[in-house]
């Protein structure tokens, strides 16, 4: 038996150097992994005024119609959230589009990604359906397609027409801030949050105007002004996820 050309010590050295280099590269990437790449002049955000929300659920229905969301799945859910001065308070919950999104961090195939404008997007063609993002999301904002959605959509046509393709069985989906409406609107020179055709369907459908959508990068936008003039909170601020969905708390003196 001939001696191996590579002795154990050299091999260990090479292996150690390789491992160190790999670990270093990983750490470097880590700092920016969950943050957006590229540039965008926009930072999209949503403001939801709890004092105006009546819990009617029109937002859920409009979302279901426009995004062709299967029955039994809700991208945009309306929850009961305590009482103020004897009045029931509601909390609508879309995807938070977190600036430090746990789902983007954990996705093994980068099927959950940050757009430069802050929208957390799903790549349905890339998702392998491991559901790690669902386990990681603190807001239960994600839904898995346990089966194919083949029937008719009960919210169509009354609440709108589907504007995006149905997702296949076996992938995870969630609220997109109606990214297709935003992108199309921008290309037509419209302003998302101002022109209804460029604004998320839930915002347009809300009968009490509890939802506002707009650009945080523009200090004159409706969302920027609202946030400047009110006290606001975000869900599970303690987690450090920095959601792009802001809530204006319910006030006792305002009756919807």
């Amino acid at each position, binding site marked *: *038996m*001939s001696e*191996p050309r*590579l002795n*154990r010590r050299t*091999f*260990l050295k090479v*292996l150690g150097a390789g*491992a160190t280099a790999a670990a270093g*590269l*990983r750490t470097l*990437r*880590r700092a920016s*992994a*969950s943050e957006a790449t590229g540039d965008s002049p926009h930072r999209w955000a949503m403001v939801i005024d709890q004092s105006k929300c009546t819990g009617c659920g029109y937002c859920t229905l409009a979302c279901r119609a426009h995004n062709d969301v299967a029955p039994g799945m809700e991208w945009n859910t309306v*929850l009961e*959230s*305590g009482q103020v001065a004897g009045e029931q308070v509601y*909390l609508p*919950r879309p995807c938070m589009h977190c600036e430090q999104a*746990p789902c983007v*961090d*954990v*996705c*093994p*195939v*980068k*099927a959950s990604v940050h757009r430069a404008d802050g929208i957390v997007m799903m790549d349905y063609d*890339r*998702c*392998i*359906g*491991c*559901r*790690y993002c*669902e*386990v*990681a*999301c*603190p*807001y*239960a904002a*994600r*839904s*898995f*397609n*346990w*089966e*194919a959605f083949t029937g008719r959509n009960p919210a169509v046509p009354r609440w709108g027409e589907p504007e995006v393709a149905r997702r*296949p*069985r*076996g*992938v*995870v989906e969630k609220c997109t801030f109606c990214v297709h409406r935003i992108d199309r609107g921008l290309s037509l020179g419209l302003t998302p949050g101002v022109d209804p055709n460029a604004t998320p369907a839930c915002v347009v459908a809300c009968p009490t105007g509890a939802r506002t959508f707009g650009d945080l990068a523009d200090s004159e936008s409706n969302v920027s002004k609202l946030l400047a003039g009110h006290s606001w*909170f975000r*869900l*599970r601020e303690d*987690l450090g996820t920095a959601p792009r969905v802001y*809530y204006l*708390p319910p006030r006792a003196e305002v009756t919807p």
Partner: protein
Amino acid sequence: MTALTQRLAGYRPSRFQLWVGALAGVTAIGLVAGIIVFARGLVVTNLNDLVPWGLWITIDLSAIAMSAGAFTLCAAVYLLGLKKYQPLARTATFIGLIGYSMALLTLLLDIGRPDRFWHGFVYWNPHSVLWEVTMCVALYFGVLMLETAPIFGRTAWLRSRWPSLAGRLQSVHHIAPYLAIAGLGLSMLHQSSLGATYGVLKARPIWYRPDLSVLFIVSAMAGGIALTVLVTMLAARHWSKIKVRDDILDRAAWFVGWVLVAYLYFRFWDAFAMTYTYDPGRTEGLRFITNGPLSFNFWVGEILFGAVIPILILLRERSRRNPVLRMLALGLVVAGIVAYRWDTTMAGQLVVVSYLPQELATRYTTYVPSLIEIASGLGVVAYGMLAVTLGIRYLGVVDHTPEPEHEAVAERVPAQA
């Protein structure tokens, strides 16, 4: 004709045939269940958006943990120079190969798009622990194939048919030390990362702690060696012609006892630290394990039968020398570690932390696997047991007699090159 019926009527299958037949039957049922899963999708499971991971992920984690004997024993033999454990390392390597194939099969069942299993190798997210696990498991599966190559090369069937291929497969053992280093590195990475898969999730307070990665790898070392020794002892008891060296089995079992002591030590501080100060979600999660629905699993399955009793048996020389007691202890270790994987998986998901602003209320949910999940899961387990049984019977996976073949191969291969 009558002679044939008489022979059939008088046919009594051996215990081996019954065992193989039963395992093949369960595997076949599991195969059917698996086909149903692929055909109808995950709607046939009892998983849901609150509990997206269940029985399959537990089998997956357990199979990988039970394969940890391979990296531990190979490191002992080829890196620490404990040469006498070489035959045990060989058994462990084969069990590892089968264990990882079980894990890959379960993962294939579990992902919603099995047709995209290869996406992890093409679309990298190095920031994701699950991506790291995917890569390490795949690479390590390759290492295990190389490490088990000499086992396949040794078979008389292959040697008589393709002697040069058999020689090549056997000669892989020359690079065994390098494979052991690669295996150690990859295993250290992904065995602990499996714990980190849960441990990095801030949304699940009972999981969110660095200890999980340490606990996963230490428990895997105990479970992997325990299963290897147990399988070896069972094989030697069933086939009297299989010769094993009881001194190395005894020593390995003793080592399992000490690994369990280390595991219990980490486990104690990990749990004890969590009892201080109310922490929303985490405190409920801990109560869920120690006083709640998982408490029997925890106190009896994991701690008493999974660690304390095995430690008492394995560290006391008299009881460890008793083969039945030793096998019992090793079996309990394996079961206890499966229970640990199950309890961990469940505690993080069945305790649901609210994100509503008023209160950090915690809700509880339940999960019972569906029949299809159980059938396909059992099918994977039966496949693994069947493969190990056949490996012992036909590949000589358990064999502690000194091997002269390697010398012969070493002389022959250069001559052919």
